[in-house]
């Protein structure tokens, strides 16, 4: 009885958490593409104007980023200016929550059929590598190992701390700019 009463609250909290995480990740994707050369190299292979979306089916929270050239990504918020090129879609809000709360690795979520890829799979694979790199930077190592298949061997603490600080600063600045606008 008590559990039933709290279910709508838990469900709303889950939706809000996922929406917030998408906002953070979208901004962080833009930031990491300005900070990290490896991410820039990955993104450079994407066509200019390439739109990437992550969303919760059927019409839940989403994030959209665009490759604006030179390996730089631009966060568009939750809606795309035109049809997206690649979309990674969580089948249910619970599946998105499992991944975004680091209870299930992205790779495991793919293996468990929690998500669908719509569009060119090779670009989706590339964007997944970018997401993994981002998570390795911004999450503490013990959390990152829960989110990604393998923590990068060549990512050492000084580089991680400096990059993470830059990314968080850029994300915070972007949040403030959006709030002011």
């Amino acid at each position: 009885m008590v559990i039933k009463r709290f279910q709508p609250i838990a469900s709303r909290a889950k939706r809000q958490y996922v929406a917030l995480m998408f906002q953070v990740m979208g901004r962080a994707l833009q930031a990491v593409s300005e900070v990290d050369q490896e991410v820039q190299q990955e993104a450079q292979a994407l066509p200019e104007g390439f739109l990437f979306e992550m969303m919760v089916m059927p019409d839940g929270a989403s994030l959209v980023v665009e490759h604006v050239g030179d390996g730089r990504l631009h966060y568009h918020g939750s809606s795309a200016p035109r049809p997206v090129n690649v979309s990674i879609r969580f089948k249910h809000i619970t599946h998105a929550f499992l991944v975004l709360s680091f209870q299930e690795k992205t790779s495991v979520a793919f293996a468990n059929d929690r998500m669908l890829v719509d569009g060119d799979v090779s670009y989706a694979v590339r964007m997944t590598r970018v997401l993994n790199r981002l998570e390795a930077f911004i999450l503490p190592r013990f959390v990152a190992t829960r989110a990604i298949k393998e923590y990068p061997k060549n990512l050492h603490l000084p580089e991680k701390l400096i990059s993470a600080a830059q990314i968080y600063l850029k994300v915070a600045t972007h949040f403030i700019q959006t709030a002011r606008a």
Partner: protein
Amino acid sequence: MTNTYYEFFCPVKVIAGKAALEHIPYELTGRAARRPMIITDKGVRAAGLLDPVIMACEESGLDIISIYDDVPPDSSTTVVRDIAAIYREKSCDSIIAIGGGSAIDTGKAVNILVSEGGTDIAEYTGAGLIKHPLKPFFVVPTTAGTGSEVTSVAVITDEKKGIKLPFSSSFLLPDAAVIDPRMTLTLPAHITAATAMDAMTHGIESFTCMAKNPLSDAYATSAIRKVSESLLHVMDNPKDTDGRLALAQASTMAGIAFSNSMVGLVHSLGHATGALCHLPHGLCMSVYLPYVLEYNLETIRGPLGELLLYLEGPEVYAITPAERRAEASIAAVRKLRDALYKRCELPRTLRETGKVNESQLDQIAEMALDDGSIMFNPKEVTLADVRAVLNNAWG
């Protein structure tokens, strides 16, 4: 490695064994189909493999309305459009695809067009675009390896854009897969070996990659056992129908396994090498399999060790210490490849293929890294890792 969640789906009726082809008329009429079209290639027709199918239908008073026998090794959007036009012109109501991966994929694509409408198959590319059951569709494989008869995907080349279009929907699955040993009896030795190694790779990768699950494991291990027990026997006795049937069943079981648990780095490398160097898929699988297993070893030690039972049998499994079983499994794969090399010179290294240039390895590595199946490899793969595996496989 064990998943706490999985999905498994295979609604394909498998009709296998002696005189299986003679069940086709019954299965067609059971789906109210009276005007079937055969889709195949010239090699299959020249080998006389259509004759028993046509005979089986005629004996049941069922005429084959049309035969398209010009499917190329890499089927294209134009071929699919042309076949769909013939299907409509002749008022066919069902499709029988007879052949290897290309003929089967073409059959799946034609079925989309004739069921959903239109002339441009490219409009249906991607996943989940098909929402309705398609026309009655039967598959008769003439190789024992691809497992295409039980997979829900097809790949067709778009000639204009020079890209491969993937199609994925559970509605692409055939109504029935007809496995008759007569269809693989005349398969040349090197194709028998390469396609069987394709089935072996499907089994091993589905058992060791990230989406493994209890049901796909059951199919994978049975497939591996059948290939291990029958392949060399068939190589030495190509007309042995029981051996041929065992390999054909292994291919279907491995197909069911990998279509439900996906594959990993062996396939990523194979897809890239096939696209760049035009090497047959089964051959690529055979070349890369032991090198990728060595690369993944520490991540898959448990399941790979279990496979020793199916690769070498209970005696070898029992006398091998548990901590050495994974290495022994890789050794068993290498031993099988050596035996195949001795019998039909099936290449064991990229150098032995004679079709790969060492300067192409970087390009293969980059393409493999973007292949969808790499997502399911149990170990995270970097460009340097792929390059190292390729160096080892070069020989």
